[in-house]
């Protein structure tokens, strides 16, 4: 089994949830987090630059700022990994930087607390 961690835009969470449950992946964890990527983004500076302030334009690319994001994590059987990844990409892709990243990591064991079962049986089947 694998863990899929996706960091996506704040407002895409509902669309992502809907698309994933339509694709048969219902179990997930979501958390709010702050993040930054390769791009340097400061909304105030961006706004200022759009309005044409010299000062703001000179600051572009200088500052670092953390942007609010959603972090989703799924633990799924190996065969569902590609479906999760492709669904998330399909829904969240706007083509601009800041769409997020998806990481796939190995998980050694998983247990269901209610019954004590372990292995793939505790995960989403389909």
């Amino acid at each position: 089994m694998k863990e899929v961690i996706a960091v996506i835009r704040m407002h895409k969470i509902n669309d992502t949830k809907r698309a994933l449950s339509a694709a048969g992946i219902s179990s997930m964890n979501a958390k709010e987090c702050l993040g930054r990527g390769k791009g340097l983004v400061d909304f105030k500076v961006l706004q200022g630059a759009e309005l044409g302030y010299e000062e703001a334009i000179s600051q572009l690319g200088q500052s670092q700022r953390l942007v609010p994001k959603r972090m989703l994590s799924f633990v799924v059987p190996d065969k569902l990994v590609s479906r999760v990844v492709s669904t998330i990409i399909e829904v969240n892709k706007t083509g601009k930087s800041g769409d997020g990243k998806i990481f796939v990591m190995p998980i050694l064991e998983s247990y269901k607390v209610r019954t004590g079962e372990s292995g793939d049986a505790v995960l989403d089947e389909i």
Partner: protein
Amino acid sequence: MVMIRSIIRPEKTDAVLAALMEAGYPAVTKVSVVGRGKQRGIKIGEVTYDEIPKEMLITVVPLKDKDFVIKTVMSIARTGDKGSFGDGKIFVSPVEEVYTVSSGVKESSETEAKEPSK
């Protein structure tokens, strides 16, 4: 690729983030967490605080850059000369696949060299 999760003191996050940016690793995710460590929390008088606020910084880097990032975080996040209890922990775990959502491209450990944006 490896995921480096560093749990550090909240007051050190700004310094660590700046240092990582300086070192050419701008991409970071930050989550506020609470936790306790080997010292079972802090005992002040009669009261034990076992939910101590920390910040978790998550970075995913190529395997070859792992040691450098760990060293950077560790040198900044340490307090005092020899470090002290509560400075935090760093966990490293393997990441098998990395996708960038905006392009849909799967990045492999070899091709995604670090790209400092300055």
